[in-house]
Each structure stands twice: as C-alpha cells, then as structure tokens.
C-alpha cells in the first residue's frame, strides 16, 4: 500500500574524471526538483567541486538551471545535488482520468501549453511509420479515449521492448529506438513521446527519480536518474506514464525537469577544453523520510 504523500530525500552525485587536466569548463545542470501542486521541494542544494560560484535561472520550460564555469585546469569535477521533496499522488487511482476522447484532441493544438509538445523535436519525429504503429495500437485496444490509448502505448513499449544498458547512447533518436526496440528509460520515453505525438496526443519528456518501494527493488532505473512521459489529458492536466516500468506515475516519482525531449532537460550538460573523459560515475540514492507536517492533513 502506498500512502498518498511521501517525503523523499535524494542525493544525486555526478563525478567526471579526466585523464589529464582540462580547462574552461562551462556547465548547465537541471538538478533542482520542480515545484508544483503535487510536489513541494523543501530543500535543494546543488554544489560543485572544485568549489566555484554558481548561479541559477529558469528556462523556457520553467525548469531551474544552475550554471557554473571552471576556467582553471582541473582533473575532476563533482556535481552534488541533495534535495528533500514532498510528493503527492497526482492521479486518483480509483478514478483514472478517462473521458477525454480522441475526437476532442484538436483543441490541444490551440493551447499554448500543449503546442510545443505536439511538434517534432531533436530526438523525436512524427514519421509515417510511427503514425501507423500508433494507429495499430489504438486499433488493437479499440480505444476512443486518450488516456486509454496512452496507457496502451506505454504497455506496448513495456511488453515489446528490451531494456538493455549500453545498446544506445544519450543521443539516440526515437526512430532508431522504435526500429530496434531496445534501450533504457530515456529511449523508451522518447519512443513513447513520438508515438503519442504522431496521433496528436500532447506528450512531453520528464526527467527525475523514483523511490523503489517494491520489496525486491525490481523496478528499472532507480539507481540513476530516470525518465518518463507526461501526456496531456483535458480536465486533468499532464499525467505521468512510465513505459520502463509500465506504471502510472504516483507519489514515488520526483520530477526534476520537463521538456520536449532529453535535450531540453538533460540533468548535466557542459563543455570543456582538454583530454577525453576517462570516467563518469553517477549515483542516485532516494530514500524515504518520516513524514513532515504537510502529511498530517
């Protein structure tokens, strides 16, 4: 049994080592949990070693971006993000958001909130092949309902795709993922976004974490940052679906950033002059804390 709210503590550490000193490193990170009605970020500390000045701003998708530069030669770069987040159940699992029909999707085209998430983007393209695949899935479930179809698309990916690290890279395109049916959470999310958009369902890419509350920690992607999809359901807003774990997103999920695809939400993006990266080490730990006062209501 999951309670409808959770206090979670996250420690996300990204450690780069270079074989020889590098310089002029410029970086942008999206590591501060988002604020919404369903998620309150009680505390968040993003820090960098070598110690330097850090500054932050909001991007066009309202994600918080931390920016820093390290000009001096360095052989190691460590980015730590520690946060405490209170999450709430966004979806009433007794009453899933059915009732928004395909025939009404056209109105999303005119919503500013949805428009960017109906177009092609860097890693996502609405090709005729993807469109036919989407129609097949919709046809197989005999669905008139947007949530039902979205759910079926998620299930299709979960059942037919192979989860395998190393088969793809951070810049693998959704078309390739759909062709090879193999990848990790990022790829599954891109594929689902593409399939949804091809039939006019507004879909966006979400990066974040989740707390694996299963007894045997059987869910995929809890050891690193995770990615999933949100689809727009009129009357309910953006509803999260996780094709990697075949789950409707609940209070165990923590949203870091949302965007059209990975490119807009990448947790860490940067450039530097110097030697090739010799190792990258990412660890994510999410643990549950005793509930705070907000849970007492």
């Amino acid at each position, binding site marked *: 049994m999951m309670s409808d709210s959770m206090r979670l*503590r996250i*420690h996300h550490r990204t450690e780069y080592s270079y074989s020889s000193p590098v310089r002029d490193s410029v970086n942008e990170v999206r590591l501060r949990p988002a604020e919404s009605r369903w998620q309150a970020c*009680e*505390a968040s*500390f*993003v*820090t960098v*070693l*070598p*110690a*330097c*000045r*850090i*500054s*932050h701003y909001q991007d066009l998708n309202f994600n918080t971006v*931390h920016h820093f530069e390290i000009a*001096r030669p360095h052989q190691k770069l*460590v980015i730590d993000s*520690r946060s*405490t987040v209170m999450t709430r159940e966004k979806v009433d699992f007794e009453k899933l958001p059915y009732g928004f029909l395909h025939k009404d999707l056209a109105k999303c085209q005119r919503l500013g909130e949805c428009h960017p998430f109906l177009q092609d983007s860097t890693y996502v393209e609405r090709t005729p092949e993807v469109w036919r695949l989407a129609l097949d899935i919709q046809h197989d479930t005999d669905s008139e309902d947007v949530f039902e179809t979205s759910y079926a698309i998620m299930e299709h990916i979960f059942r037919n795709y192979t989860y395998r690290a190393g088969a793809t890279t951070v810049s693998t395109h959704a078309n390739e993922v759909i062709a090879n049916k193999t990848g990790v959470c990022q790829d599954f999310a891109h594929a689902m976004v593409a399939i949804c958009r091809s039939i006019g369902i507004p879909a966006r890419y979400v990066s974040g974490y989740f707390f694996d509350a299963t007894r045997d920690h059987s869910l995929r992607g809890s050891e690193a940052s995770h990615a999933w999809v949100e689809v727009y359901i009129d009357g309910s807003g953006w509803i999260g679906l996780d094709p990697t774990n075949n789950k409707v997103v609940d209070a165990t999920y923590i949203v870091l950033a949302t965007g059209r695809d990975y490119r807009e939400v990448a947790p860490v993006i940067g450039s530097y002059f110097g030697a090739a990266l010799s190792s990258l080490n990412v660890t994510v*730990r999410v643990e549950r804390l*005793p*509930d*705070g*006062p907000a*849970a*007492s209501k």
Partner: protein
Amino acid sequence: MFEHYQKEDFFDEMFASDKGDAFDFYQPLKDRFGRLSPEEIAEKQRRVDHGFLEQGVTFTVYGEDSGTERIFPFDMIPRIIPDREWQTIEQGLTQRIIALNLFLHDIYHDERIIKDGVIPEDVVKSALHYRPEMVGVDVAKDIYIHICGSDLIRDGEGKYLVLEDNGRCPSGVSYLLENREMMKRAFPGVYRQSGVRPVDSYPELLLKTLQHLSPRSGMTPVCVLLTPGVYNSAYFEHTFLARKMGIEIVEGRDLIVIDGFVYMRTTLGLVQVDVIYRRLDDDFLDPRVFREDSTLGVPGLMEAYLRGNVSLANAVGTGVADDKVTYAYVPDMIRYYLDQDPILENVPTYLAWRDEDKSYILDNLENLVVKAANESGGYGMLMGPASTEEERSEFADRIRENPRNYIAQPVVSLSRHPTLCEDFAIEGRHVDLRPFVLYGEDIEIIPGGLTRVALKKGSLIVNSSQGGGSKDTWVLFQ
C-alpha cells in the same frame, strides 16, 4: 507548578503570554508537570542526579582550584521543538555545512572565493587556525568538517540565529544522549505519548561517517578515537562515544607511524589504523609539524595524513571556519557557492578589523558583546551591559592592539525556557541549542541537539564552564 511563572519581556519557548497559555505542542508536558508536587519533583531530581553520578557523566572546569570534576547540571523540563521548526533548522544547518565545506576546499585549493572578491585574502590567511600545510591537499572524499556543532539561539521574536559554528572538535553530544536516557526513566509516560523522535542512532551514524573516510576498501575500516587523555574536559564524552561505537580509544602514545602508515599498539601487535576521530586540536596532532612541545600527538601523523594513508575527522585546518571573523562571511559563502539566501541567519556582527566597525565597537562597548575571534567556551569575552568601566577599557586596549582578533555583536536576549530553580520553583532561564551535524556519505542531523541553559538568574552565558546546565531536547514527529 506554573501558576507563578513570569514570561516577562523575553521570547519564551513554552508560553505565548503571561496568562499561562502554553503552545499546543507543550500542553501534554505542562499538564504532566502541573500534576507534580514539589516533593515528587525533588524525588525525581534526586534520582536523576544520582543516575548521572553513577554513569560518571562529568566534565572538567579549567582554571578553578576547588574540585575540577563536576556533574553537568541537568534540568528536567525538556525543551520541545515542533517538527516544522525543526525542518527549517535541519535545512539551514545542511546548507551551512555544505557551504563551509566548499569554502574550506576552496581556500586550500583554487581560492576562487578570494579571487572573486567575496572574502578578503588577509581575513582567511590571518586566521589563527589557517594551515598552509593543507594547501593543495585532497582530503578523503573532499570533506573537511565531518562533525559540526553549530550553536543556535533565538531572538526576542523567536527567530533562530546561528551564533557560531564549531567545526573542529565540538563536544556535548554525550550529554544529549545521556539526558535522553534520564528523561525516559524519569518521565516514561509523557515521553512515550509525545511522539519524540529518537536520537540513539547517533553513535551508529557517527561510525558510518568515520568509516566512509577509510583509505582502504574491501574491509571493515579500523577507526579509533584519539583523546588528549583523562585530564581533558570532555574525557567522559570520548570514552562514551568510543564505547558506543565499539572502537578503541587511544592516546597519542598508543599510536605509531611506520613508513607513512599509522599503527595502533595492541596486545596482539600492531594494527593499521584507517580513520582517526581525533578529539585533539590541530596544534597538538603532530609535534614534528605543529607544536613541538606537544606530548599528546603522534610524531609523523601529518605525513601519513598528507599521503592519504590515514584519514582524520575532522580534517586539519577546519579552524578557519570557526574563526569569528570568517563566521561573519558565512552568509556570503552560501550566496556564492549555492546561489541561495541563508535559511538560518547570523547574529549581526561587527568586525573590528574594518575601521568603521572598529570605531562603532569602541563607542558602544557597553551595549555590545565583544568576543575574541579564536576563543571558545565563553572565554575571552566581554558582556558589555554587565561590564565594569575597567573591563571595558581593558578590552578597548586589546581591540586597538589587535583589531583582527575581535568582533562584536549586539546583545541578543536569548529565548527563555521554564527551568527548575531553587526550592523547585519554575522560573524562566535563557537557553541555546547545539545540534550535531554529521557529513559523511549523507548529511545527517539527529533530531534536536543539546539545549544548554544558563542556570544563573538573568545570565546569558550557557557554557558548561561558566555555570550552565542542560536539558533534554524533543523534536516531535508531527
């Protein structure tokens, strides 16, 4: 018991006004104490004091002739911190220890914060405890302050302020743990009903923090606690923590450095040591590097440390952060390294090192608290309003002579808490709070901290060496 309680003009931890209306989170406790007769209280107090004596929970006062070993006076009325307040404290202290650690890493490496003009170079380098030996040294896991005991006070409005950070060898956690044991025995009922967050995981968390630093992997690290010895004021605490963690307590002479590795002499021969929880100041660690006259340290220890063969908690050189001039810059550090506003504010601080502040301090000595930048435990301090003309002119001379070493702060009328006084009357006494922060793989703060109380009527000085006592501190679940 509380009928005659006077809140007066102070912020009171328990009562919102003089009419006796306790904050709701204090209500069960107030009811419980309200039902006690003075005789019952006297009886409980007797038992508690006896308990402390039996446990040997004592401390030492320096510079006094009569019997230096004392029981730390314990007040039975606990201090309660509601969860929402605690969350702010927890986040504020987390933010602070992160910033302090980044600062220490920075000043011993690239000095970005100095080059960017946020903190003047001479402030950092003239700090008594700045260690040039540490420049360019990479300490284990890049953590400097593993154990921090910041002192918090509350002003007239109840706002929490940081009074100082203790990033060298903060003490007091054993009293916190023992106070809790005594309270559980003296008031089992109200303790259970109140939903108090436990503190007994501290030794385990401390051990984890130490083990995290081990230079050797693939085995259980050998951690030891290095004590200056039985004459140290906190010796009880050293033995207590070593026992609770199940690690050896050693003195300098029990350790030996061979080929850059540290070994402990045991009855079964030498055992290599990975992590030293040292309760010894930098100055005494290694007579070859620091004070030659130190007989407490271990010759060659610094070499082993700099070679990364042994880890020290806290790291060498953290004393810069304890300097009261550095303290004044912590809010700037937080803005610089985190791009955030401080969650917990500092007490406003004047630095005699700045000329304009110096003349203000000298003109207002009778209204200010003057502190030496590198003293602790309530030593080297002038309480302006309670001072004599003579004391003030003495301090004025000292400030003119060495302005870098003095700071001044307005007198903050610390919050008060109902406290058992003479003949078991309950009166308001000033309190502070020292939470203990552990920085290992995670940053952990055990709920609450040590509440110190100035037992002398009207006194604002809570230090145990100056007639202070302590209370149990309860953070409630909700």
